[in-house]
């Protein structure tokens, strides 16, 4: 075991995957010689060469579409999209082809590939570098959506994503890349897709969240415990597609109160689906309406206003108070 940051765990996962399987390769902008702008692919070019750590032209549709061809042919491409906002040019390949080729060909052609996408805000970057794109793709059938929240899960989920027979969007919480270290095994292991984790156990209310917001939820839970004595359960969804409905509903039935937390815009988001599912499966258990803590229906603000947008501990505690006092 070694203490790793989240970015180190991702780098380690890539090395482990590439050593295990000669078909695994990484490609994208500046992922070779430079090791990626966040250094996620650091050292891969040196260890595996230019045919497996491939610097591509600056054209997302081009390298995402080409990676689809590679995946269909039998390689295992792990594509790095430099920043969330730059996935837009590749949108057509994702929604029209990568997500559909299995269905379109009735299983003759499949597209097992991973798109690693540094996601969400919190690093005070320029415009288009801080987007929450999960809701865009949660509505696309045929893609899987995975969002790790800590170094251990990041490595295990990424290795599971690389092994998965379907295309996976892997949304990395970039503000947690170097936020903290955790014990991470150096060997191969996977964390299964579609299984949520209970990040903190509790009986009084549930916070359903994922990615960078798990840290916010844990801090809010500490605050609520200290200030009010509430025992908050924090469910880290880890994967949005497939979704671990049993864990979500089990927790809500137990605590009877729920808050959903994300920094995506408020309206028509994936978090709204969580509320709809609770409505479908656990309405009669609820003691209070489910509260949502979200970003606002505005474009992600620039760095000076970023903190106004991203939900912090106070907004989460306020929502928890709301559902507890209803």
């Amino acid at each position, binding site marked *: 075991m070694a203490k790793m940051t989240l970015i180190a765990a991702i780098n380690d996962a890539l090395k482990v995957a590439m050593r295990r399987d000669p078909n695994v390769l990484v490609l994208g902008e500046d992922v070779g010689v430079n090791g990626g702008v966040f250094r996620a692919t650091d050292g891969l070019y040196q260890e595996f060469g230019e045919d497996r750590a491939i610097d591509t032209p600056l054209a997302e549709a081009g390298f995402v579409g080409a990676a689809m*061809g590679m995946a269909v042919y039998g390689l295992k491409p792990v594509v790095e999209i430099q920043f969330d906002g730059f996935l837009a040019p590749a949108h057509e390949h994702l929604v029209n082809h990568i997500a559909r080729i299995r269905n379109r060909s009735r299983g003759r052609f499949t597209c097992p590939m991973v798109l690693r996408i540094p996601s969400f805000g919190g690093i005070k970057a320029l415009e288009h570098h801080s987007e929450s794109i999960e809701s865009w793709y949660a509505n696309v059938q045929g893609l899987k959506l995975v969002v790790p929240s800590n170094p251990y899960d990041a490595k295990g989920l990424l290795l599971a994503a690389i092994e998965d027979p*379907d295309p996976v969007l892997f949304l990395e919480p970039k503000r947690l890349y170097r936020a903290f270290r955790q014990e991470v095994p150096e060997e191969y292991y996977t964390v299964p897709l579609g299984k949520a984790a209970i990040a903190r156990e509790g009986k009084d209310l549930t916070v359903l969240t994922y990615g960078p917001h798990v840290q916010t939820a844990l801090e809010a839970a500490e605050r609520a415990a200290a200030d009010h004595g509430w025992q908050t359960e924090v469910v880290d969804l880890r994967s949005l597609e497939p979704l671990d409905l049993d864990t979500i509903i089990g927790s809500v039935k137990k605590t009877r109160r729920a808050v959903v937390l994300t920094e995506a815009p408020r309206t028509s988001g994936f978090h709204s689906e969580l509320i709809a599912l609770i409505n479908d499966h656990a309405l009669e258990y609820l003691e209070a309406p489910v509260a949502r803590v979200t970003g606002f229906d505005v474009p992600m603000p620039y760095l000076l206003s970023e903190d106004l947008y991203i939900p912090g501990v106070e907004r989460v505690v306020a929502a928890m108070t709301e559902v507890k006092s209803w």
Partner: protein
Amino acid sequence: MATIETGKLNMENLFAIRRVLNSDGTLAGPEPNLAPAQLKEVYRLMVYLRSFDQRSLNLQRQGRMGTFAPFSGQEACQVGSAYLLQKGKDWIFPTYRDHGAMQVLGVPSVNVLRYYMGDEKGSRVPEGVNSFPISIPIATQLVHAVGVAWAAKLKKDDVVTVGYVGDGGTSEGDFHEALNFAAVFNTPAIIFIQNNRYAISTPNSKQFKTRTIAQRALGYDIPGVRVDGQDILAVLAVMQEAIDRARSGGGPTLVEALTFRYGPHTTSDDPKRYRTEEELVEWQARDPIERLRRYLVAKGLWTDQEDEGLWSWAKDQVAAAVTEAESMPRPAVDEIFDYVYAEPTPELVRQKEYLKRQLGRQGSGEANTHG
């Protein structure tokens, strides 16, 4: 240094149209190295595809098939672009108008018919036939063709891929990204453009300023060639060179074949709104099938009697495929759910069960007999 004014360069001469046969079937250039059996084979394929295309149009008109995209007039491109590929090894990436090339590579006619009848199983091409399913979004498939070629190169397989696109599709960003990636990574991908003059209704003059599409190759520093797309022998000659280049590590080629679709863009389109009868007649006089027939007759390889027999054979073959396609059952309810992921998600399982329950209540059971 002088600014290069490309408008002053004679691109039409630089990319002179390659031709082997004149419209009347007489020789315009050196004959490609094809055995008599191969010449008859490509003729047979063109006749078959013309019969298939015409019958499919009729099926759509009779309400027995959905929207259909015909290729009649483009048979030399359809056959010539795919005939020399190695089946089971090389790959093609067709558009909705390239179901002729698909059949040349080995996709059964029944698959194409089922596709246009609205059954996804049509796109489940048999193992060993490396045709991607039809791509409807324009030019996207070129990037996939480059990706597969690139993967094959990385795996040291001497595979060749052919990506299909029309004149309109060359305006898409993906066309340019595909050419750039093919060039940078020297992938064994052939980009085969069928310039049939109109993107639905929009003519070449409103699509691009260049005098040729082939000259786009200059911008990517790859070989480009223009060919008479109504001349199967010229298309075959050009493809042989491109395939040899790709297979021997020489990288991509951009092929612009000049052609014309006799019919509508799809069965929902009325070409009389945007092109003249005279233009159609002019192109029909260059018909690829008639041209090769005259050549074969002049060479003493073909008789009128054989020709009559061939058209009759083709009609029967197509009829048999239609009968088979129409006798297939509607897709089962499960089929729309079972291929979204390798394993259906719990939510998909719930939705499938719901639909089956609903259909059960409506008295239609599990069979897809709705509509």
